[in-house]
């Protein structure tokens, strides 16, 4: 499965930010209140550092962080692939 490695990394980052949330069971992190707007800021900063990218401000939209798959697709846009 494409992107398995990134998905594991993304899941670990998410769990570090919100250890109490079960990200595997949700496909709408925002609506399910697993992430809030400031968590997204923390997530972006961590993804930037982990993958040596700079996610553009215009891409910092809730829909790009609603699921692990959405985050993986966003990373792919910035050239992060396995």
């Amino acid at each position: 499965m494409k992107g398995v490695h990134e998905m594991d990394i993304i899941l670990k980052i998410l769990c570090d930010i919100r250890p109490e949330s079960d990200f595997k069971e949700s496909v709408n992190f925002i609506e399910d209140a697993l992430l809030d707007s400031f968590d997204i800021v923390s997530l972006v900063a961590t993804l930037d550092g982990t993958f040596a990218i700079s996610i553009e401000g215009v891409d910092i939209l809730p829909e790009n962080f609603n699921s692990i798959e959405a985050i993986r697709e966003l990373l792919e846009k910035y050239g992060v692939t396995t």
Partner: protein
Amino acid sequence: MNFIFSHRKISGLLAIVPANERDFVDEMINFNFPLARTLKLKEVMGYDKRRIVDGPVCVSDLACFGMDYLFNNGLLARDDFDGLIVITQSPDYFMPPTSNVIQGRLGLKQDIFCMDINQGCAGFLVGLIQGFLLLDQPSVNKVVIINADVLSRKVSVKDRNSYPLVGDAASIAILERTDAPAPIHANLKMDGTRSDVLIIPAGGFRLPCSPETAVLENDGENNLRSKDNLRMNGTAVFNFVQVEVPPMIGELMKTASSTLDEVEYFLFHQPNRFMLEKLADKMKVPRAKMLSNVVEQFGNSSGVTIPMAIASNLKERIIRDSINVCFAGFGVGLTWASMLLNCGPLAFCETIEYPNR
């Protein structure tokens, strides 16, 4: 909307900050969030120290304190200016204008043009544009621009989105004519269709303050604030800045036939470090050229963060030299504006403290 000015200059700058310093870490207990998450925010957003007024201090108090400092130190003569523009979102009263209040408290002459402008994070730019326009009149030789806010008094202490970043401050900029013809380019845009993303819902005639408007409400992210408090839709504001500001700066450079490389410092309004770093990356300018240390040391004091960035970082140089700088402000309204100018040498550039009670 584009503006071009010539034979105009900023001749002096004074920043006034309350002596009352708050520490983000000490205040974390106010917020309904796990400490680890809040500490992560400190690291990413650059929240650290901030200055807020101690007690019921008003904009005219900070302004008069600063003006008296200028008078008493021979930096400005009491009758030597013909315009007094106050830019604030936290006026002393709905009526009379705070500029008139300041004129009266300082005992200024009656032949003076006093004006209040209700603007926030773009307010310093709006004030500069208005001040430069006023200098078109032969009867106006010098204009004082006071940009000040005490918004800490309108923010809920249980609102993690706004409370840890808000700072109070004032700045006084002196504008006057100069023989130097170097052009000053500026542009300005406004969009009232998004006026609700930064708002204090109650307190005006639309929704007067009442016991009902004072009730704390959960915004869905565990921030507690009432309709009497400042409310910011952080996601919408962040997206607005990232979408609108880079093309605005691009247009400014094009109009001025300049390039980003020619700008020595980008002195943008400082809401938080993260937003500024993202702007710098998008504009492909080094982060070091886009200063972000004012919000870390003093908090977000609306448009005042721009003159404070000069006073905090460039004080020594700008009293001797001219520096090619790009200002930008963006916020309530929504309003966004930018200006490209050679700033300096200034007759003075200082920061003073407004004492605690």
